[in-house]
């Protein structure tokens, strides 16, 4: 039983060294066994962690801490064995708890004012931690 580690921007101090985001074994095993398309789309989650556009803090009302990493993977799985370009009007979001453990990754529609941010980003997060300006 081993977790998978993936380097990404440090959400506590983006100027500091990268952190290891953790894909927990329990999650990847559950996806592997019972949610095969989600398992394939962990590739998109890893892409987002390595090519993040925006990071938000304060993702939950009832749980302290946590971050949302947003990005735009080139492709994703839409059905078993079927790959398509990732839609231009969506962002792929990866949610991480305060222990840097990934617990959710998914597509969401983009905000009208910024295609790199999810819809209603102004009201649902604590704040913007980091934006990729390169």
């Amino acid at each position: 039983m081993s977790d998978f580690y993936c380097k990404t921007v440090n959400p506590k101090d983006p100027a500091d060294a990268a952190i290891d985001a953790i894909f927990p074994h329990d999650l990847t095993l559950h996806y592997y066994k019972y949610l095969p398309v989600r398992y394939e789309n962990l590739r998109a989650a890893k892409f987002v962690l390595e090519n993040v556009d925006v990071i938000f803090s304060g993702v939950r009302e009832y749980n302290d801490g946590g971050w949302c990493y947003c990005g735009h993977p080139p492709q994703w799985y839409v059905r078993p064995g079927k790959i398509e370009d990732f839609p231009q009007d969506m962002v792929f979001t990866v949610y991480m708890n305060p222990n840097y453990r990934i617990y959710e990754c998914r597509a969401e529609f983009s905000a009208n004012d910024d295609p790199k941010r999810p819809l209603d980003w102004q009201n649902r997060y604590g704040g913007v931690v980091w934006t990729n300006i390169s």
Partner: protein
Amino acid sequence: MDQHFLNGMHDGPQEFRPQPWYNPDGDCIIYQVSDEAFVAHRIDDMLTIYRSLTGDRIIGFQIKGVHAILKKSGWEGLSVSSEIGSGRVKSVSIAAMLLAAYEEKPFTMGRRRGYASAMQSPEYSCDIPLAEFQPA
């Protein structure tokens, strides 16, 4: 596409199974009834629903802040007992949990529609054994 980065870490058969799963790292329950990509629609702090890419079907949902809901409603208010073999097993009812989450916030038309959608998704009435609710 390239080889999966987790290739070799897991083995055995892969079979889609529409069953609710409590994820301790996210303190959330995810439930998906179809093995396909989806777009997530956040209803409120406690519920996100998963829509098919064509938007015409609800294929699942995520309930967040599970322990806060359990703490407020109590295990007894959310649990059901069932006979399995010769013993009785206590489980948390997903339907009861959705109702408890709905009651947490002011009633609005958007929330009502969102929660109704979640409860209309096929097989929503599944339960999760009490023993699985161990926080991370």
